């Protein structure tokens, strides 16, 4: 499916496949468009199945001219059936797409892989981004693996684990005194003055395509079927909308039977411009000043928000928000029932799943896929105070004294 142009999502103006992200005419976001696949469905499927166990097995559906060049294998993460989670929620079939299994422990490795591969094709030698943390980790790591310089811009008050796990790769870390929207705005201005590939600014159309591979993998791992429902987090709205786009492209290519999954978006109440727009029955996402523990979702001015609202509405889904306490409970619920320790964004997603189930929005017979986008070690502070450590002297007696009542109760 060769990429043939960048097209404006608002007015359909067409541009060449270069480092360009916004329509000159109406400021609408640009998106990669493709011509029809050169192969039939059977041949496309063979090519995918013969591909590597990384996101590059889907290279036929990505906007690259040649064989992708990236050094840090990404994708092909586990899709785990979560029966104990389903049981707790009164559902029958829940699957967890575990994106913590990526090289820097979040789905951002996907978008960065595609952005980097395309940036190299376009001749860039320096990689940069505005980030709420996960993207910072991914950009610094993939740049290091490729031997490129990197400049990572983050809000200065980000979780320490995310800052340390970015600086570890040796690039330039710039902590901006402001929130993500301030960082993003600064990067837009900096990108006009420096010839760098800003993954979520000037090469954003290519970057965004990487999220489609999450949908491709889910469908392939479910034996080439689209699930009934997807629950995924919304920050800028890019991942959420590209998941649906991935399924659509495979239906168009004849790889999947036509079906539209119900799309449920998840936001934190302290930064929920998209959920508020959905609830108000509008697609205008009024910007907010974020105040939530889910910092990776703390985008107060989400560029793809209007499209996310439209998608949720068109598929019979919703965009819901949950409180910080519900987020902590979501992290715990997922960990206790699946063995996956997720960061706050995954707590948001799990909490919204629980909310939908409690509200009766989900038919128990549905096959539901929950996208867990990042690792709990990155927001480790949220685990503090949620359990008790039994501290004892190193003697059997001390152990029995401390744990005796509990051991007897368990008999």
């Amino acid at each position, binding site marked *: 499916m060769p990429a043939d142009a960048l097209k404006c999502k608002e007015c359909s103006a067409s541009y060449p496949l270069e480092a360009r992200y916004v329509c*000159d005419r109406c400021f609408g976001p640009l998106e990669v468009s493709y011509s029809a696949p050169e192969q039939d469905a059977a041949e496309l499927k063979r090519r995918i199945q013969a591909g590597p166990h990384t996101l590059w097995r889907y290279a036929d559906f990505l906007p690259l001219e040649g064989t992708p060049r990236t050094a840090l294998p990404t994708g092909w993460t586990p899709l785990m059936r979560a029966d104990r989670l389903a049981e707790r929620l009164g559902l029958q079939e829940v699957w967890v797409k575990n994106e913590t299994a990526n090289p820097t422990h979040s789905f951002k490795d996907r978008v960065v892989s595609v952005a980097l591969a395309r940036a190299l094709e376009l001749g860039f030698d320096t990689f940069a981004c505005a980030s709420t943390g996960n993207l910072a980790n991914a950009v610094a790591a993939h740049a290091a693996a490729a031997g490129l310089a990197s400049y990572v811009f983050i809000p200065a008050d980000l979780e320490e684990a995310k800052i340390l796990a970015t600086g570890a790769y040796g690039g330039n870390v710039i902590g901006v005194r402001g929130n993500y929207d301030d960082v993003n705005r600064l990067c837009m201005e900096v990108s006009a003055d420096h010839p760098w590939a800003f993954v979520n600014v000037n090469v954003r159309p290519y970057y965004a395509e990487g999220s489609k591979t999450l949908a491709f993998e889910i469908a392939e791992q479910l034996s080439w079927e689209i699930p009934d429902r997807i629950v995924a987090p919304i920050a800028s709205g*890019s991942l959420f909308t590209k998941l649906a786009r991935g399924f659509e492209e495979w239906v168009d290519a004849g790889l999947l039977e036509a079906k539209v999954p119900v799309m449920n978006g998840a936001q934190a109440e302290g930064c929920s411009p998209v959920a508020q727009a959905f609830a108000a029955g509008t697609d205008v996402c009024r910007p907010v000043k974020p105040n939530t523990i889910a910092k990776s979702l703390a*985008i107060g001015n989400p560029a793809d928000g209007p499209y996310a609202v439209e998608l949720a509405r068109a598929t019979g889904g919703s965009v819901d928000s949950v409180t910080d306490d519900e987020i902590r409970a979501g992290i715990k619920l997922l960990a206790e029932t699946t063995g996956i320790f997720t960061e706050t964004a995954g707590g948001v997603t799990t909490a919204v799943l629980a909310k939908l189930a409690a509200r009766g929005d989900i038919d128990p017979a549905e096959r539901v896929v929950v996208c867990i986008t990042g690792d709990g070690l990155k927001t480790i502070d949220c685990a503090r105070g949620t359990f008790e450590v039994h501290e004892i002297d190193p003697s059997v007696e001390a152990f029995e004294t401390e744990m005796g009542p509990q051991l007897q109760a368990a008999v």
Partner: protein
Amino acid sequence: MAVTIKLPTQLRTAANGQAEATASGDTVRAVLDGLSQEHPELRERLLDDGGELRRFVNVYLRGEDIRFLSGLDTQVDDGDELTILPAVAGG
């Protein structure tokens, strides 16, 4: 009220290649009107048919998004700076 308007690269061709322009008015709307009189091509790039900001155009007054203020009706003072930028966000 004379206000300085910082233009993003995407708009500079419609403003004789300038990165900055000046216009007068009491409100953001009046300033943008003034700017459009000087550079008529800018009007349809910034505003929709109803005269409201297009949904992917962000305008900042002294660094603050005008949607946190009073939108296009936000009052401006002499010497203020408006920045126009396209909406774009990653994560």
